């Protein structure tokens, strides 16, 4: 501890932040569903799991070309959106969101079951393996997967921000998130809005699944536990903010890094506990999350 020099510290912070970007696509997926319908999606981890399995199927079993395999996987998981909207969520349109939130719990359980039925319980090969050789930037050494994930997350965020700010559908999504009945009365097709949100979410979760399984080297439902961090990341960042999703993910990543560093002196499990502690502190200071918009309450 005493010999912790500046370079090591920087290294740990940067590595932590980059680990955070690994979670970011999943957090964004969670965020977009919340934002378009105020539904807290408890099946987010399962979307990641299914995404990883589907990516496995297409890259390892179907296509010999990695890029084509990934493309096919993304198209396939993209179809999940309309499917879930039609089958599960449409009857709950413009009803209290609580019902829809409960439904996502059921959805998660059935997706889990389905995935075990199709792909079994033994771990399968990761669809993409990242070069073992770390990337060096000056004195800083970083795992190659983190660099990829940072890149992917940056692209995802930019696209989403443009989508929200510049497109009609993005605006419809924000509007429907606030008041579905009102959006419908103005001619917004809320069914399309929700299907789109789930599609983006599923695709984004698949990206996360590919990255994370790459880190672990296998696909199995252990990935579900990783996904739990995302709920914390999303809440800390601010549920309705794209930037917040990223910031929250990074905060969790950095928290894990620091927690891991302190674990030997504090005790086992601190690596996982420390991010939660950080989250708690943030929430006390900013109840809407780091970048979450404060509800306007006028009386």
């Amino acid at each position: 501890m005493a010999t912790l020099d500046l370079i090591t510290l920087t290294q740990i912070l940067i590595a932590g932040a980059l680990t955070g970007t690994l979670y970011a696509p999943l957090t964004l997926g969670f965020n977009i569903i919340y934002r378009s319908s105020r539904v807290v999606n408890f099946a987010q981890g399962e979307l990641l799991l299914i995404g990883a399995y589907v990516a496995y199927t297409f890259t390892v079993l179907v296509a010999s070309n990695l890029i084509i395999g990934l493309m096919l996987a993304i198209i396939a998981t993209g179809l999940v959106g309309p499917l879930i909207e039609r089958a599960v969520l449409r009857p709950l349109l413009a009803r209290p969101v609580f019902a829809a939130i409960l439904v996502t719990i059921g959805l998660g359980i059935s997706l889990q079951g389905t995935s075990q039925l199709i792909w079994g319980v033994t771990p399968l090969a990761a669809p993409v393996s990242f070069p073992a050789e770390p990337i060096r930037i000056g004195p800083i050494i970083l795992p190659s997967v983190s660099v990829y994930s940072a890149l992917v997350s940056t692209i995802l965020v930019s696209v989403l921000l443009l989508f929200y700010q510049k497109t009609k559908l993005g605006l419809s999504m924000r509007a429907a998130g606030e008041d579905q009945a009102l959006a419908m009365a103005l001619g917004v097709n809320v069914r399309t809005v929700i299907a789109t949100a789930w599609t983006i979410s599923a695709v984004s979760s698949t990206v996360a699944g590919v990255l994370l399984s790459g880190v672990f080297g296998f696909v199995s439902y252990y990935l579900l536990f990783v996904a739990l961090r995302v709920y914390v990341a999303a809440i800390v960042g601010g549920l309705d903010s794209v930037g917040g999703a990223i910031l929250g993910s990074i905060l969790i990543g950095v928290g894990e890094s620091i927690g891991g560093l302190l674990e030997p002196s504090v005790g086992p499990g601190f690596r996982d506990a420390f991010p939660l502690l950080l989250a708690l502190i943030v929430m006390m200071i900013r109840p809407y999350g780091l970048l979450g918009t404060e509800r306007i309450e006028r009386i």
Partner: protein
Amino acid sequence: MLRLTNIEITYDPFIVVIRGLSLQVPRGQIVALLGSNGAGKSTTLKSISGVIAAERGRVTRGTIEFEGERIDNLSADKVAKLGILHVMEGRRIFRELTVLENLKVGLSDDDISTAFDFFPRLKELKDLRAGYLSGGEQQMLAIARALLGRPKVMLLDEPSLGLAPSIINELFKTIRRINEEGNITILLAEQNAIKALEIADYAYVLENGRIMLDGQSQDIMRNRDVQEFLMGLGESGRKSFREVKAYKRRKRWLS
């Protein structure tokens, strides 16, 4: 152009709120739907625009036709696309979005200057989050937004609610202008009978989910019972049409 024939509206599961209601809104007119609290004005408008589904309500009998097409129990976004826009009660706006973003949601003209022609005040406020607007400004925004959808019919639900008299006057003048210059047919639900009758061509009086009376605005305005029950004039102490024999044998609508 908009015709409701003997409709019955039921909220889930068996709460019948409107019974055998018929009314029509001819093209180009302002038709007022008057009645006190709980009469069923909002329910009627919601059943036309389809938003009633969000409250587990539906039209269980009768028909709603718009330009010859059945629209009862059609989903709200489809009704909107046919040209009927509903400005809901209580100044429903997207509070987290800016005024400008509010104006662009849903069916919306690319040219939003029309909104500012009718409501110049909104132009100064366009970058403010709508939740921060005053009540009157929010009501203007709600109407302006519907206006940009270029509706054939606008359903206005108690635009005067909670606004100061001077603002109400201004607002009702604008509603008249929207009708005349914008060439938009209006069905106006109001408790404020005096104001509504001033701008309406025709009026229906609703009580307990039934139409008690209807006629040209001038006639309704002169009606002693309307003056008493809806305008608070007169002193007999009677409070509803039901107590008045003349309306018990209310005329059956010929559809």
